[in-house]
């Protein structure tokens, strides 16, 4: 992509693209008539390097989408810091928030809901190109065509005047990707981008995102519940449960040598895993998200649980193997 029009963030050498420190997001709920708080994101730390894909894996309710939304600043962090491209974006508002959208974009799960049914494909691209890159006339027309070409929506002349209902799910998701790329972002949050697509076109969209990463040195937070695609697309995998990080490691390492009991459980449950054994869990309770909980969030389901786990929350620590795991008994 050509050079951006506005002042874009510059990154010092060696500085990560995304730096999240002690991030907390909490929501009020009503519990027994009184106000209480739940913490879907509970003191989370991680970084994403330039051109790196961090795959965030977990079940529904683990807080993975909330992290994505916090990084996009669709929700505001309750505590902690989010630094993207060297800029603290934790509490920005108004103009600076609008500018931030040029650095970070999001691809949503549902390509049927994320496009406007009464706008053509090219109109979807014109809006960000006009607003953020001040393109007009021929420039606008040409740039939109380039973007469609880039995401493989050819023949461009025919596709650009189509409406979303004339496109397949995979094509719609490609439009969403083209729209995200229109502002020349540095960082993309992709929230389950392929889970609603037909199996035969998922691979194409995954490969496209991979290609774009290489071509433009894009950083991604790839949110998914599917370990196999996380392993394919992610450089590193971060496993979440109940709002906390359970384990982080290089993708291949994590699949080959999982250390945290929850990672092991997820792996055992994933279809296509050649090792078939009884699921290593003791119950299927949902995690307690209430603020002020004690002990390990996974304790109620963990086969290795001891009294220590119920009282003391394990810290995420780096192990000899290079994994980071939050477990008293991780090995």
């Amino acid at each position: 992509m050509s050079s951006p029009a506005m002042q874009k963030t510059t990154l010092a050498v060696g500085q990560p693209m995304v730096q999240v420190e002690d991030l907390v997001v909490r929501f009020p709920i009503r519990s027994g008539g009184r106000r209480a708080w739940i913490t879907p994101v509970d003191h989370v730390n991680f970084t994403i390097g330039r051109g790196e894909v961090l795959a965030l894996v977990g079940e529904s309710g683990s807080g993975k989408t909330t992290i994505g939304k916090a990084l996009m600043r669709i929700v505001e962090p309750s505590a902690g810091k989010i630094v993207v491209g060297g800029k603290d974006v934790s509490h920005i508002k108004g103009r600076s928030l609008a500018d931030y959208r040029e650095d970070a974009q999001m691809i949503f799960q549902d390509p049927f809901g994320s496009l406007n049914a009464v706008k053509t494909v090219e109109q979807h691209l014109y809006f960000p190109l006009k607003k953020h890159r001040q393109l007009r006339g021929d420039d606008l027309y040409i740039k939109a065509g380039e973007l469609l070409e880039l995401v493989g929506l050819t023949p461009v002349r025919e596709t650009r005047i189509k409406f979303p209902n004339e496109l397949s799910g995979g094509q719609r998701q490609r439009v969403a990707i083209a729209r995200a790329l229109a502002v020349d972002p540095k960082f993309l949050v992709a929230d389950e981008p392929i889970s609603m697509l037909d199996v035969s076109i998922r691979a194409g969209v995954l490969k496209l995102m991979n290609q774009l990463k290489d071509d433009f040195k894009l950083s991604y937070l790839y949110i998914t519940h599917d370990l196999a695609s996380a392993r394919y697309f992610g450089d590193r995998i971060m496993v979440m449960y109940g709002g906390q990080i359970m384990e982080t490691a290089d993708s291949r390492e994590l699949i080959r040598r999982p250390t945290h009991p929850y990672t092991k459980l997820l792996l055992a449950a994933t279809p296509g895993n050649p090792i078939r054994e009884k699921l290593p869990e003791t119950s299927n309770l949902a995690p307690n998200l209430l603020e002020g909980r004690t002990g390990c969030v996974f304790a109620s389901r963990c086969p290795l649980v001891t009294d220590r786990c119920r009282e003391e929350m394990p810290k995420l620590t780096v192990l000899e193997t290079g994994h980071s795991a939050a477990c008293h008994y991780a090995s």
Partner: protein
Amino acid sequence: MSSRIPVLELEDVSVAYDTHNGPVQAVNRVNLKVYPEEIVGLVGESGSGKSTLAYAIMRLLKGAAFLQNGTIKVMGKDIYAMSPKELQAFRWAQMSMVFQSAMSALNPVMTVEQQFIDTLRSHNKQMTLEQCRMRAAELMDLVRIDPKYLGSYPHQLSGGMRQRVVIAIAIALEPAFVIMDEPTTALDVVVQRSILDQIQAIQRKVHFAVLFISHDFSLVAELAQRVAIMYAGRMVEVADSRALTQTENHHPYTEGLLRAIPRLTADEIVIEGIPGHPPNLVSLPSGCAFHPRCPYVTDECRQQRPSLYEVGTAEIECHRYAGQKVVQHV
């Protein structure tokens, strides 16, 4: 295997939807047999006709959809030759279905127990309330939910528990044949795995046959003994699930699907998408419907629909296997 009487027998089944421009075929001359105590997977993308076929088997087609051709027999009985009364008694007692969305399959304003009682009583009026309650508790045990939840309303249960309740209701009358239409698609992997393990365990205990519909290839290959693959309304391949560990000797569509799935444990992951997208049923490609996306396409594919050939243990509808024995279903 052919010596046994199949629980499900599809002969030349076509299902169509009436439209302004005439009928559109969603299921096109499909043949399939499911034998007692067998789990058969039915895989296809959205729009391939798999759910339409399931509704046709249950004789639940509504609105513009109708059985255009062929016969559907369950336990040797022609479903479409039954009177409404016979059908009412037959359905759920002999064949039942687990629907995709557990929340909409359950009645939100009735307790779980009431829904069990409803099902049991409508087929056996002699059953006392006490007997119904005992049976309901027994069924809850079978799907590993504490019977104390019988008094709960569906919204008080987790997604996994609801789907277990739906499964328990489906097998309440001990049918010989159960259709499961994407029963775990909306659930987390761990819950999905535990439900699948349970389906297998229950199936070994109370013996019924399952037609398991899914779009998840690796899941079906693990669960089922045989897998049927649908594309654009046609059953393009029926294969032993063991054969699906290899990417060769399949229908090109099956091969494409197998290459499109990232493998969890392989050392080097290379995935290859299938070019193009699934066809619109209103304007199906000529000849073999897969030909615009097929890497092996020839002129013959564009002009003529292929016959069904026997390839190893599989039956495949593709010109590439011309030379092999032709399968005659009817």
